[in-house]
């Protein structure tokens, strides 16, 4: 078991310790923004209602969504692409 545990830690540290932006939305085209927004609007009532009542974008400031979406991504293991769409939608309120 010790070996398994060590393997997990090792794998974690070795496999591309690069740091993937969790929710960065910079440098994308307006068309891409629009696509993400539309997808986010489609996902929000489904994903965000899975564990608790879906909380609307207007509840938090855009910078807070950058934090909270990371938290939700961890809890829900949400696919990264979907997270980018959701944060786009949430920030637009």
């Amino acid at each position, binding site marked *: *078991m*010790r070996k*398994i*545990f060590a393997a*997990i*830690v090792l*794998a*974690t540290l070795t*496999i*591309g*310790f*690069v*740091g*993937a*932006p*969790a*929710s*960065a939305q910079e440098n994308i085209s307006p068309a891409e923004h629009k696509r993400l927004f539309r*997808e986010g609007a*489609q*996902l929000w009532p*489904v*994903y965000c*209602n*899975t*564990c*608790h*009542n*879906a*909380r*609307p974008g207007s509840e*938090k400031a855009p*910078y*807070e969504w*950058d*934090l*909270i979406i*990371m*938290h939700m*991504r*961890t*809890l*829900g*293991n*949400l*696919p*990264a*692409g*979907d997270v980018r769409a959701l944060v786009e939608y949430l920030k637009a309120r």
Partner: protein
Amino acid sequence: MPGRRIFSIFLLAFGLVALSLVGLARAADSDGSAADLKEIKSEMRQLREERKRDREVIHSLEIKVQQLETKDSKVETTTQQLHATDQKLKETTVELQQTNAQVQTLQTKVDAPIAASEFGDAISRYLGTHSFTVAGAAGGSFNYDQQSGALDGVSHVSQNSFFFDWEPMFLYRPTDWIMFEGVISTAFGSTGTGADLSTADFQIFLNDYMTVVAGLFDQPFGDWYESQSPMWVNRFVTAPLPFGAEAVVPGGEIGVQLRGGMQFGALGQDVDYTVWGGNGPNFSSNVLGAAVSSPTAVANSQTNGKSIGARFRIYPLPVDSQMGRLELGASTYNGKWANGNWFNSWGVDFNYFIGNLQARGEWMESYRQMPEGMGSDNRQGWYVQAGYFLNDLNVPGFPDKLNGYLHRFEPLVRYSGVNQRAVSTDDIAGATGVGQGGFQTGLVPDFGINGSPATYAPHAREVALALDYWITPSIVWQNEFDLELPQNGGAFVSPSGAVTPAGPIPNDRAFLSQFTIGF
């Protein structure tokens, strides 16, 4: 005007000369007959009259001329004014042209990429690159517990208590791929004010498929600890039995997780995994049925290694299918405790929601190897629950406002149960706060647990009915009625290891009312 007057005098003179010339001619023409004279006189009269008329005409002409002159001067003033205006317009145009040129220069400056980035920099400097926010929850409740029955000689005591719980959560994000989460639980419960660290971990987003979580965290086993336990998230005031007084799996762990998720089909069809390792499980004592407790704080209290856990979930329904969201999960958590004895557990769970209906349930089992041939300490736990939002209920004849209030209600029902071979009497005495010479020593009833001794039956069963009133998605007033329906079977074990079979255990009723805000 003198010119005109000269002209009229001249006209008059010319008339007289002409007249005298005619008179001369006539005089010369004849010798002056009376008839001729008469004719001349009448002609002179005519001429006088004509002259009078001419004067009148001249006078009226003079008046007209004067009028024309006034008009003319007016026109001249207007023309001058027009000229002035025109001049001003010309000047303004020049000024405008100059302004335009200035605006254009400014625009070129603004449009220049260097200026835009300068602006962005200014904003970033103002906000900082590190961001921080506080969330969490606060709740106050009143618990009434009938405690009609007692366990193992514990006296009958009613519990009527207020509780308050505040769990601030701090989220700190130094970069776009690292976050820290810390939750402090503070409560005023049956033992007075207390605070403890319930979660503190780093979340490091390695790539799209891997996130490392390191620190003190909720056990990722099943759905409840990690995603249902916060008080504004839980649809009920209390925890289902397998996560309350008689937990089947420890509620937290200190260690490292690796987790992530991905889409495997259409949008919404996802799979995800969580694997983790930590210090391992701990128990309140070495006797059968001893309660699981927080993670082992000191590594050397374990003789043989750490814990390891894994959890997988699948969401088979695409978002487009309009068939709702279904989650199916499976978990396992294994480790060694105290003297190198095994602890193994596994569980399955589901969660489904469509429209106003939400249902979830879990089933789990744990096996705890006991020292010195005591036989294993097996436990099973389960719950199923369903709730329905009255969003679309419109009672005919009710005013809109009343129907509006009705829409905020969510009635719920939950059935949960636990089977344990035994229960430690120490846990009961320490927890219920009754029977120990009359003073409160324990932790229960406390936030999320109704305090009924029947929840400590080896074969506890509970039906919980709840009516939630949702003010916003995270502000709720919850009312819950619990019916404890313990089954016969199992045993109570004293700290010295003495085993007493559990006889019939009285049913119990409890009512809880709680107001909660999720930040």
